[in-house]
């Protein structure tokens, strides 16, 4: 490779990778959490995880929940009823408020509302992942650009490393200099995860591009189908015990299970939608009273459904989902190590420059503050959000607004902190360790000890403790910085 080409590749890898990395870290982190959205919802609302043994769904519960859905629809709220599943054993009478899925949890055996307030829940991370909570189409545009940035960065990185790809595939030198260690870590993860990251990135870009295209040129809908906004203006459908029973019976007969499916209004009727985990490709076709039998569908009806299946992995088993979540977190580590390398390289450039202009110093401080807010501020805000769902809410605010405000305030403060002092990273790592280790204590103190799903709480607490442990190790190994 000629030195000129190498310099050009390195330039693109760094200067596309860093700005894209700021968003990609957010996407990888929230994507990893989105893999376990129902479980996070359960952790944030401990009363909905119920007591052991978990009560099964009953006919009386379904009818009562159906009545609650009818009340919501009659009142003009476009709600839908999510059916209980092993991952979330309660009815969820949800509506989408533009950012979050909100609504009461209903007991699976009685259909009556369970105690406990609304929380931001796991869907907060799902929507943050899909549109960064930005107004449409800005979120989609930014995510698409970040995704394209990821693909370019992966390809330039691969090209740079091509000749050493195989010989250095598992190379990591823990005893080498600090910068070399970070580079080894970046290359180790980057090369081994290249195919996985490429597929995740490509599928994400395709999905977001399709959303953008649909905004520009809305797709033609078949007469039987109505979008959420179209049905919102339609009259509420009839919901009776007979309809509910026949729909669920038909669903059970045709799919084998209705767990995790949902009841939602389709044009003028109530429809039972199949669970998302039934097929690899997402198939949103409903059984309705007038169409009780599902027509044979191709395995992947559209390209969109194929990429949804590939990107979301809703159909996958528990171990595959854990590994997918781990892939996202390792993606965070690769992006994070890349950002650290970028900062070190910029710092070295400044150190070797004779005179440093004020603007150059300001730029360097901006890079550091943005990196701190991304790499540390986001996990910090996430842990704060988890804490916020379990701590008392100020009287003047609704719990959801309080939790959202807490998340964004902490994230914003992290950025501001990064601008104010160079010790920000160290101090925020300390806070992260504190919150991470404290989560288990908070969890045990704010819920009943006996629960129907102890593994769920243990897993979330263990993950938080892992964040605490990693932060503590970083804190002890990090060289002290003077302000």
């Amino acid at each position, binding site marked *: 490779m000629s030195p000129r080409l190498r310099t050009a590749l390195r330039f693109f890898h760094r200067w596309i990778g860093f700005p894209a990395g700021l968003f990609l870290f957010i996407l990888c982190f929230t994507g990893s959490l989105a893999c376990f959205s129902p479980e996070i919802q359960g952790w944030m609302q401990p009363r909905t995880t119920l007591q052991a043994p978990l009560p099964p769904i009953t006919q009386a519960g379904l009818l009562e929940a159906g009545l609650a859905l009818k009340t919501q629809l009659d009142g003009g709220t476009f709600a839908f009823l999510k059916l209980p599943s092993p991952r979330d054993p309660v009815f969820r009478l949800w509506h989408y408020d533009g950012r979050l899925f909100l609504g009461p949890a209903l007991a699976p055996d009685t259909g009556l509302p369970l105690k406990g307030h609304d929380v931001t829940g796991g869907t907060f991370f799902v929507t943050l992942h899909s549109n960064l909570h930005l107004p449409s189409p800005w979120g989609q545009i930014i995510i698409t650009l970040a995704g394209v940035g990821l693909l370019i960065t992966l390809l330039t990185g691969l090209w740079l490393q091509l*000749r050493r790809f195989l010989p250095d595939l598992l190379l990591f030198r*823990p005893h*080498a200099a600090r910068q070399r260690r970070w580079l080894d870590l970046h290359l180790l993860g980057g090369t081994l995860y290249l195919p*996985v990251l490429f597929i995740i990135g490509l599928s994400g870009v395709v999905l977001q591009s399709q959303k953008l295209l649909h905004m520009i040129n809305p797709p033609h809908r078949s007469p039987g189908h109505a979008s959420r906004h179209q049905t919102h203006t339609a009259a509420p459908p009839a919901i009776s015990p007979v309809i509910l029973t026949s729909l669920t019976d038909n669903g059970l007969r045709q799919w084998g299970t209705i767990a995790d499916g949902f009841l939602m209004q389709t044009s003028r009727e109530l429809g039972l939608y199949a669970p998302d985990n039934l097929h690899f490709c997402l198939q949103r076709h409903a059984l309705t009273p007038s169409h009780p039998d599902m027509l044979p569908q191709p395995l992947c009806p559209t390209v969109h459904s194929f990429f949804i299946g590939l990107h979301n*992995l809703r*159909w996958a*088993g528990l171990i595959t989902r854990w*590994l997918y979540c781990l*892939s996202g977190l390792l993606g965070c580590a690769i992006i994070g190590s890349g950002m650290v390398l970028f900062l070190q390289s910029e710092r070295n450039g400044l150190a070797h420059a004779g005179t440093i202009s004020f603007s150059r110093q300001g730029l360097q401080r901006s890079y550091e503050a943005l990196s701190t807010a991304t790499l540390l501020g986001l996990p910090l805000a996430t842990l704060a959000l988890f804490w916020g769902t379990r701590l008392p809410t100020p009287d003047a605010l609704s719990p959801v607004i309080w939790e959202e405000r807490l998340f964004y305030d902490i994230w914003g403060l992290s950025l501001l902190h990064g601008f104010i002092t160079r010790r920000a990273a160290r101090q925020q790592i300390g806070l992260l360790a504190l919150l991470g280790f404290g989560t288990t204590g908070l969890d045990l103190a704010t819920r009943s000890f006996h629960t129907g799903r102890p593994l769920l709480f243990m897993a979330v607490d263990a993950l938080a403790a892992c964040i605490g442990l990693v932060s503590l190790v970083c804190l002890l190994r990090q060289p002290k910085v003077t302000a």
Partner: protein
Amino acid sequence: MMTLALLAILWTLVWLLHLNGLPAYRRQNPCHLPPASRFQNHLLRLLPVLALVSACLMDGLDGLFLWAFTAPVTGILLGIILPLCVPAGRPRASGGLAGSLSSLNGQSLQKHSEAPKYLP
């Protein structure tokens, strides 16, 4: 879980065989296999395919994804753990085993006399 365990074992073997095939100054594998042979090279190509087929037979589509996710996880774990297995206190070579032929600067494998010249 069975599939995961099987894949982890097979991928670990693949990475160890890969490391074993590298020149001595690049090897970080403290548990040496016999010197790389044609059989090992065949095995290196065969094992991932065998792992894929068995994972798909055992778990279907889930198996395919498990196969894809297990490879980097085992590789990264081995890549991080193996260099730490080199006994402490002995002079560490750059990315290689203690006392191997490599230079002792701990920085660049390119400086070794046996290393191919990648950079002009």
